[in-house]
């Protein structure tokens, strides 16, 4: 899908094929690292980054604009803020159970489950969401770039139409 304004993208058969083969493996590895961080090297930060990088690779191979239309702004904002809210809520939940902020010992005493599950919950539902969301968002914001004449606060699609017109001269 060649876009006139997307000057960062060149269609390359080699890159597209390579990414098609690699992407499933990196996504699986990133998810494995996130979900298995308690018993193997890795964790939410590393796993979230690798999941984010998979999306970055897809954007590089198949064009940033199609990827951006596929991952809407509301989805990315939901990932980032949702991660922070879940992390904070788990921490406050432990206070509600009678412990300190993020003190998972209460899980053992009240629900008779290992404190491990509280730790895994903040790794999976907190850290990895924030990190992968911010990685993808940084990439998209930098790809959109900054030009002083563009009005601030408009959505991706309207703006790209503006750029298409202004780039013609």
């Amino acid at each position: 899908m060649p876009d006139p304004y997307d000057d960062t993208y060149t269609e390359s058969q080699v890159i597209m094929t390579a990414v098609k083969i690699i992407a499933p493996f990196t996504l699986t590895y990133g998810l494995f690292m996130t979900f298995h961080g308690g018993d193997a090297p890795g964790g939410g930060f590393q796993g979230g980054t690798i999941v984010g990088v998979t999306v970055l690779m897809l954007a590089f191979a198949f064009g940033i604009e199609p990827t951006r239309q596929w991952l809407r702004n509301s989805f990315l904002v939901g990932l980032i803020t949702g991660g922070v809210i879940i992390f904070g809520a788990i921490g406050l939940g432990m206070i509600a159970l009678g412990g300190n902020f993020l003190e998972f010992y209460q899980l053992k005493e009240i629900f008779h489950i290992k404190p491990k599950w509280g730790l895994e919950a903040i790794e999976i539902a907190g850290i990895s969401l924030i990190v992968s969301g911010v990685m993808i968002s940084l990439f998209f914001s930098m790809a959109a770039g900054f030009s002083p004449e563009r009005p601030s606060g408009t959505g991706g699609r309207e703006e790209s139409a503006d750029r298409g017109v202004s780039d013609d001269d």
Partner: protein
Amino acid sequence: MSVLAYTLAVFILATAVATVLFRDVLSVIIVFGAYSLGMAILYTFLLAPDVAMTEAAIGAGVTTLLLLLTIARTTRPSTDRLRERVHLPAVAVVGAFVLLLCVAVLPEMYAVGITETPVWSNPDVTQHYIRETYAQTGVSNAVTSVLAAYRGFDTFGEAVVVFAAGVSTLLVLKREVFA
């Protein structure tokens, strides 16, 4: 340290020097990616796989992609020269500083893995996390248990810092949406 580790150290030094000396921006980004990959492998030699994974994902992966994106969005200055011009007084000052570090500081450092290091001087503290991690938290990776359980509050702060990085990008670019 094996022969392989020394070869790796030479590779890292060579790529670091090449990053400084190359004139072309694209070449610099490529050698810098190679440098990060070398560092990631060196961290696994030093038995720090968690750090190695972060270095490989952030240093060699995301940073390279973001830098490539930056030269795609701005300009890549064309040049005929292969090498950046070297500023001799600056080289002399930095070289003297490195020499001082090698002569005065390096011999004072402890060898990797010996038990006389200050980290081991209080084994009640350092061994506590290694011994008690599984019993207290139920996970066998001590790095993760310190990160998410013993120092969970710190990690909450770190996660909020990453969140703040995303927000400040929007502020700097004067935008209200990411996409």
